[in-house]
């Protein structure tokens, strides 16, 4: 199946005008599969960490959202043990006007603003609510341990 022009354009634009703190590089043998790196936002427990993700554009993209998953272990109430992300724009609020770029920015923003009221990792969210400082400290430790560049 030929690669739609939109994917080519998005890829070119990601390369030509990269977003600060975010990189997405397609695999040579599969241009729908991207290696993604997101820098933890400053003033968050993820600061200083570089998180690796995988991103895949399904056949019916952009009518369906990209599939994205964290590969780096991360302690976050909206990201589970397998790296699956709970983010509305990746699910019911996807729109074809969104792009890889905007989605990755949303994920970076999610790192800066965890939402324990809409959890994917229930145990993390629980801890986040009960003892936020301790949870943030754990997130910081995990960042040091697993997300060091």
């Amino acid at each position, binding site marked *: 199946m030929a690669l739609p022009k939109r994917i080519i354009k998005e890829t070119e634009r990601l390369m030509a005008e990269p977003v600060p703190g975010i990189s997405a590089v397609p695999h040579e043998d599969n241009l729908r599969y991207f290696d993604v790196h997101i820098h933890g936002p400053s003033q968050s427990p993820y600061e200083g960490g570089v998180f690796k993700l995988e991103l895949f554009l399904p056949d019916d993209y952009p009518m369906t959202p990209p599939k994205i998953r964290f590969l780096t272990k991360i302690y976050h109430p909206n990201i589970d043990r397998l790296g*699956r992300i709970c983010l509305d724009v990746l699910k019911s609020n996807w729109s*074809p006007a969104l792009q890889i770029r905007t989605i990755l920015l949303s994920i970076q923003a999610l790192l800066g603003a965890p939402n324990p009221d809409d*959890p994917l990792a229930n145990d993390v969210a629980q801890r986040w609510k009960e003892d936020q400082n301790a949870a943030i400290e754990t997130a910081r430790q995990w960042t040091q341990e697993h997300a060091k560049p």
Partner: protein
Amino acid sequence: MDPAGQHRDMMYCHECHDEWYRDEHGLTCPECGSDFTEIIEEDHDPRDHDDDDDDSMPDLEDHHPQHPLHHHDPFQPADDPEEGDISRLQWRQVGPGRFSVTGTVYRTVSPHGQGRDDGGANALGGFASILNNMIGGAARGQPAPEDAVHRFSYTSSARLAPRDAINPQAHMEPVDEMTNVLVGLMATFGEAPGGPNAQHPHGHPPHANGPGGGQMPFHPILALLNGMRPGNGTMGDFVYSQEGLDRIISQLMEQTQSSNAPGPASQQEIDALVRKPVTTEMLGSEGRADCSICMEEVNIGEEVTELPCHHWFHHPCVAAWLAEHDTCPHCRQGISKHERPSNTADGNTGASGVNNHGQMPGSFAMGDGPANDATLVQENWENSGSSQQDSSSGGIGDRIRRGLFGPPHR
């Protein structure tokens, strides 16, 4: 997105008997790393062979020198499963933390009876199937080749992987899981019981002696459960491990990931959208603009389609989107004339209901009743627990309704 109907190669590992989809894990066994694997084909199923070698499959004669079926009259109509129809159902520990459930059910099928096949379904075979399906295992029904007396050997087995209580593991979001289960259950109401895949997993046609005489006596609940499994009836989805379970849950999550998104706009409404040539004032300040769906540049004079919210796109681009979700890609406003009750459960006049009306053969009759039922279900649901995953009110109701009225088309 929806793998139903589309063929996916199943792989089988001769070392550890793991099974997986080839397109997910390739040719090497993801469980034990062995290369001694094989593609499962309809006319060549390595699992059959293994079952023969497997000493967990009891030789009936060993245990029942005089099998009760010996004197059984297969032509005698009977609605209850005979005692002799059960040959064995056993739980066996196959390793640390792993159990295997093995059952062999011999079932006599009366040629008299459609009634028996459909109504008086095989409770015992059905039970084994339910058990298997509950734990994500696979049930494989195989008509015995020497089928002269309309007898079917029904064999099923599955393994259980209990949760690891020692090592920390993430919770599996029971709320979402149950939602998925419910949606799956509801969705299957619209399908013919069993579905085409469910009845002859190995491609053997039934030995039809008489009306329905050779049909595998599938329990209707098995049919329901079949519809719940990823791949809609794909046989051989075992759960061996936490990873296997995660895989299946991931699939379920993906299948329903957009199910609380707004439903499609009607074709009439899409066709009725205003089409007009691009004018200078429609372009941005830089004097250029592109269709944000295909990202192609749009030139002055080119025909585009404008939504009621005045956002415009190429017609084919936006039509493809609206046919799935009635929202403007930019501002999310719908194109439907009547305001859709997108986030309420009390709308039995909503566009989502109207649009999908009658798509599902065998679904509940549409009208006030079922809509009230949906409301009821939703209320019960919200009373019974937190629905944080779908905290927008009516999210669950929407999902259940969508389950009732058919999954989103792709």
